[in-house]
């Protein structure tokens, strides 16, 4: 260890350059993981906000977030009278793009029964939720609209009364919460150009899905079987909705991101292996010397491997620090949990050991007698 540190100090430039290069690679690996986790959190935000409710969607569809779905608003009334059902609410979802103060903003409008009892669990950052049947809107804080601001969506005047936290649609757009009546009106007058997102299929239909909450003590499986008898719909549990969402676009992104991360880790390993190996090759004379002086095998292994370990740990620490500064400014949400950091550390340690294998073998193969040769 002493030898390793003394040598790194003597080659500080190379040490720092390697650590920086590795740190950047590690930062990207961390960012990709964080973006994936952010995508999952975003994708599930609305599903999670609905708690344990059952989801009634258009028959054979995965909707309303994974794909288009439209159900007749009367379904809610029919569901409400099914035994074991406490309440059923039509959920309207509308992708919407508008101009505000020269900026083009995209939101996913979601309706709720704000005038009486909202069914989704909205998380407020500041201000409040809409409380009247008309004219109020709460937007995700990332949208960039200030509380108190007045906006107009399809001729409907709305006042921003609060900021939501974590209200992101699976498309990545910020969610805005409005009353059912307001969304009805906005939907009715929506320009044709906005119908490209899945949710805009709801344009022609009264609702994207119906959310059904269960009466206390009701058997979810039984209620679901009863609901499934309503023609034209498919019923999902919250867990099924989650996995449908994650199996779709999010899963594809996960596999792509995973592949990139594996590639980057391989690149990092190769880089570190190269640096460690060339540092070892450059000190063949010193290795022969300490072998002749009677160094144990473990002394040699620790000399070589601890350098790769030190560089890896320094790079990982730098990557975490860079991430803490930079990730909050990313356009997409980056979510990194403490567990991810520990797993990352573990991966980094494995990377350090793998990349020192070649160098260690080289060091052990240096003949001690080389130190005697003139």
């Amino acid at each position, binding site marked *: 260890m002493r030898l390793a540190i*003394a040598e790194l100090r003597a080659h500080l430039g190379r040490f720092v350059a390697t650590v920086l290069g590795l740190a950047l690679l590690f930062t990207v690996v961390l960012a990709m993981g964080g973006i994936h986790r952010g995508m999952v959190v975003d994708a599930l935000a609305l599903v999670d906000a609905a708690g344990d409710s059952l989801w009634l969607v258009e028959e054979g569809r995965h909707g309303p977030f994974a794909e288009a779905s439209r159900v007749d608003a009367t379904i809610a009334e029919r569901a409400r009278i099914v035994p074991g059902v406490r309440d059923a609410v039509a959920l309207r979802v509308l992708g919407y793009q508008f101009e505000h103060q020269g900026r083009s903003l995209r939101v996913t409008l979601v309706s709720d029964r704000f005038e009486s009892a909202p069914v989704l669990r909205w998380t407020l950052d500041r201000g409040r939720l809409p409380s009247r049947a008309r004219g109020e809107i709460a937007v995700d804080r990332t949208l960039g609209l200030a509380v108190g601001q007045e906006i107009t969506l399809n001729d409907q005047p709305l006042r921003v009364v609060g900021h939501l936290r974590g209200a992101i649609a699976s498309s990545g757009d910020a969610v805005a919460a409005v009353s059912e009546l307001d969304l009805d009106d906005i939907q009715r007058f929506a320009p044709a150009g906005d119908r490209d997102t899945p949710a805009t299929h709801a344009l022609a239909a009264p609702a994207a899905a119906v959310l059904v909450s269960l009466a206390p003590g009701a058997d979810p499986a039984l209620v679901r079987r009863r609901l499934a008898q309503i023609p034209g719909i498919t019923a999902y549990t919250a867990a099924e909705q989650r996995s449908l969402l994650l199996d779709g676009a999010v899963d594809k992104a996960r596999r792509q991101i995973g592949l990139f991360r594996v590639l980057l880790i391989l690149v990092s390993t190769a880089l570190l292996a190269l640096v460690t190996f060339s540092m070892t090759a450059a000190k063949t004379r010193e290795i022969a010397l300490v072998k002749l002086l009677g160094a*144990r095998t473990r002394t040699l292994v620790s000399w070589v491997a601890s350098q790769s370990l030190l560089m890896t740990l320094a790079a990982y620490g730098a990557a975490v620090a860079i991430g803490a500064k930079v990730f909050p400014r990313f356009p997409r949400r980056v979510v990194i949990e403490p567990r991810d950091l520990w797993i990352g550390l573990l991966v980094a340690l494995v990377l350090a050991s793998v990349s020192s294998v070649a160098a260690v073998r080289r060091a052990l193969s240096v003949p001690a007698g080389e130190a*005697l040769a003139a």
Partner: protein
Amino acid sequence: MTRLQAIDLEKTYGSGALAVRALDHVSLSVDAGEVVGLLGPSGSGKSTLLSCLGLLDAAQHGEVLLDGAPIAKDGRFVSDPTEVRRRRIGFVFQRANLVPFLDVRENVLLPLRLEGLPSRAAREHADALLKRLDLWDRRSHSTSALSGGQRQRVALARALVTRPALVLADEPTAALDAARGREAILALKDIARDEGAGVLVVTHDTRILDAFDRLLVMEDGRLSAADPKDHAAPAH
């Protein structure tokens, strides 16, 4: 007291028609505090002998004893050769062979560190050697800032820091001028005598032969005692 004893060493490189007998029934002994010079033309087997005595290689036949106990016998090591080298043998090379990224004192401490954390007594011994070899003022200098003579004195301190039973030196004065070479050998002799180490020095350097207690000559793998007068440098 006999520090080193070699009995009837035989070492052959290669086989058949290409076989080279590098050591041919070589026997020798070095006593505590004794500094023995080993002369001989290039290719006569001096380095091979040092390798066998320093447990870098094993002679096919014969026995090497350190302080009366066998450490190698008939082509095999009797005890762990790295441990014997680390604890009981000091090495000095033609060039000082210092570790460039360690300072003077750390170079001297290196053999102790290979063993583990040096004891207080061991560190004090290292410091005493640095003072004795006139390196104390330079102890925290980089080795690249030293002269050739200073570098070789650092190498001597490193070889002696573990209080070895035996010091093996391979042409330690080859890179030094006559005065520095003599100084180095005399310093080595001085300390070896005080600490009771046996010293075997391979040398071509006829200018320093009178500094040795005894001379041996190697020729075609055979060892014989030599008279210093036969090898003395011609007077200028």
